[in-house]
């Protein structure tokens, strides 16, 4: 049986040579993404803006206009409707009453339920969320804090492990991934809720995984080929790890694709975000973060100094009982 190879052996693609183009394209896309986020805004879910969300399931596909009329007649504020892939499911968003707290929100749900049942017999509310303004504020704060902490924490880890250039390039590349994801949500106007924060964190985690593998190879090659030109060395490392980069992205995309098509509408935005993030993350690993090391002035000399230090540390470790798998 002939085995499948997505990437041929011994590729020699000049990624570093393309870096100016790649940087320009990346910068342009990132600016567009940030612009879209500011200009169009994110379609924030009730998690982040507070309010009432009711997901209603109908016996037969309803006319959205009629649903809207029923909701407008309730007189509880500006409602907005949204439909998912399933034509029988409609999501209704309502503002939370400013006063009266939980009791009032309760009353609205009951009112809506009565009015809808009268108009569309057999309708059920398959889920509903109410989030007060105070809680939604905290959720935003925690979400932003979580993403920032993750990005910074990981950048610090890779700075301590390697040279500072790795930390900076990783940070830049990951910020790019996060911003592109935000831009994607601004453009598609998919709902941005708590789950999406989890998706963004996962993208951060995955993307860093990818960059670590390449960074690790660069470091290994720096030790192996001390005299090699930095550009050639980075090209070599990226090419050597290319089969793995592509293979892993494809397997993850396969798994996520199954989830996107079959996982139900509740997770659709979440999965879409992750798929986009995987693609963007893979791109930034190959084209952005490693080439950026050159721009940041990584050279074998700086690496050697650090390696020397690490060596002393490594020797110190040897003072203990040896356990490197060597057998007598």
């Amino acid at each position, binding site marked *: *049986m002939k*085995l*499948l190879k*997505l990437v041929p*052996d011994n590729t020699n693609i000049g990624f570093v040579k393309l870096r100016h183009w790649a940087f320009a394209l990346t910068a342009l896309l990132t600016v567009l993404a940030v612009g879209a986020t500011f200009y169009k805004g994110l379609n924030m879910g009730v998690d982040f803006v507070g309010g009432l969300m009711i997901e209603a399931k109908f016996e037969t596909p309803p006319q959205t206009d009629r649903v809207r009329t029923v909701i407008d007649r309730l007189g509880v504020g500006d409602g907005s409707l949204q439909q998912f892939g399933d034509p029988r499911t409609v999501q209704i968003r309502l503002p939370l009453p400013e006063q009266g*707290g*939980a009791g009032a*929100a309760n009353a609205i*749900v*009951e009112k809506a339920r009565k009015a809808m049942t009268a108009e569309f017999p057999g309708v*059920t509310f*398959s*889920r*509903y*969320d*109410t989030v007060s303004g105070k*809680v939604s504020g905290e*959720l935003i704060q925690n*979400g932003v804090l*979580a993403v920032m*902490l*993750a990005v910074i*924490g990981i950048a610090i*880890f890779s700075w301590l*492990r390697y040279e500072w250039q790795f930390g900076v390039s990783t940070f830049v590349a990951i910020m790019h991934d996060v911003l592109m994801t935000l831009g994607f949500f601004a453009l598609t106007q998919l709902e941005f809720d*708590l*789950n999406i*924060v*989890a998706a963004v*964190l*996962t993208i*951060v*985690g*995955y993307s*860093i*995984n990818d960059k670590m593998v390449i960074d690790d*190879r660069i470091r*290994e090659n720096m030790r192996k080929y001390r005299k090699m030109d930095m550009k050639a060395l980075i090209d070599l490392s990226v090419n*050597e*790890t290319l*089969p*793995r980069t592509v*293979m*892993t992205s494809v*397997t*993850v*995309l*396969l*798994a996520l694709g199954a*989830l996107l*098509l*079959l*996982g*139900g509408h*509740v*997770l659709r935005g*979440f*999965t879409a975000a992750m798929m986009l993030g995987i693609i963007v993350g893979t791109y930034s690993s190959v084209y952005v973060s490693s080439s950026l090391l050159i721009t940041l002035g990584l050279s074998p000399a700086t690496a050697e100094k650090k390696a020397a230090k690490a060596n002393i540390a490594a020797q110190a470790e040897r003072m203990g009982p040896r356990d490197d*798998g060597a*057998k007598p």
Partner: protein
Amino acid sequence: MLNFPRWAVAGILLPLLIGIFCAVPSFLPDRVVEQMPKFMQTRVNLGLDLSGGSHLLLEASTQDVAKQRIANMEEQVRTELRRGDTKIAIGDISSRDGKLSFMVRNPSEVDAAVERIRPLTQGAGLTGQRDFNVEVVNSSTIVVTPTQAGIDNAVKGAMEVATEVIRKRIDEMGTREPTIQQQGANRIVVQVPGLQNPKALKDLLGQTAKLEFKLVDVNANPAEVAQGRAPVGSEVLPYPTNPAGPPVIAVYRQVMVSGEDLTDAQQGYNQQGNEPIVNIRFNGAGGRKFGQVTSQNVNRPFAIILDGKVLSAPNINEPILGGSAQISGSFTVESANQLAIALRSGKLPVALTVVEERTVGPQLGADSIRAGLTASIIAVAAVAAFMFLSYGRFGMYANLAVAINVLVILGVMGILGATLTLPGIAGFVLTIGTAVDANVLIYERIREERRRGRNVVQSIEHGYKEASRTIFEANVTHAIAGGIMLALGSGPVKGFAIVLLIGIATSVFTAVTFTRLLVSYWVRAKRPTEIHI
């Protein structure tokens, strides 16, 4: 690298077997699992988004607690200074800005007054901290200010009692396996799986259920009462269902009997048998007090007050001596039953408001499980086929590792009693995708080493050794992201983070260690001189 001593083999296989074993109960029906011994019931809990149910976040107002304490303090100060032979006259009592201040009429008694109220301000514990500070301003005004520690303590105490009361109320409703937890300083999370209509639950938790009986002030001028003014010693309370005119009524401030003196409350019907009421029973002291007051006030009305609102104001036709009474007040069977539950479980020490609610119907939950399961199966199949096509025999080793990994994750979640949420299923699918990453790293490395001309055994040894370091580093960073999600995420996101973190830990073990064991057995048995990878 490829030689495993026997103890190492046992060390690798044993945890995997335990993990798989612990995953089994999650696939068995409820009936079977209930008959198993307790330690074997390692099942994955389903989150509310999968089982259906309600999640409520309740918040207590700390200002409310502080206000109540000041009101209590005012009451105590009044009683204390009026007590005994040497009464101290005070005036200008005010409780504004969270402080209590009053003037001592005779300036020479200021020191004596401070001496007498000082014991009231001591904390209950042995911490030596005061709950209140007492100061004398302008030589005749005494100001009592609560300390922060005192407020914190009071809030803490109130929240503990509130959590207990809520637990009792929910248990009385007869729902299954509710989760009730205090969160932060002044919040309580309530999760009730499988609840169809959370309205009743919210109504129940929204009641403070402070019950009081007070005499109606029949001498008050109705016109003044309608404007909200009451004679000295009386107060005007809302009375929404007042049959005689305005929705207010004047009652004496003094409490005849309160809900604290109850021993039981049950829903029932009035004597005509057509109107739902709540039958209550007092304890000994409460029954005596109630009997005494009703004996002295025959043919006068008294008010039944719940949470500051008058429910009804029946006439006392005869002394009520038996220690039991009934509460009427335009109830439905449901609301009478609810009040009975609330009264049985005691009053909440502080009012709670729902600041966040998430309810998922059981139908959507079941749909989500089915969709998630289908997606997972297809994902596993697609990844497995792809791995086999790419790496042949080695791909199958990786697939076996993934299959075991899925079971072990479920087993570990069962042991920890972790909750599987909808994003958790996504975490599962993602773990399947990334678990093979470790194998991809190793196999690609083996391919490379072969191309560089190393022999089979050397390539495999090198592949595992070099790739392991990379895998470790990549997973540490991945775990950083997961750990942050676990720490800062809420609800479903936490569920996702748990699966991710467990998955990272187990996948390194199955993908690296377990496949190495498989590969080593094959290499030793066949001694291949060429590998197809």
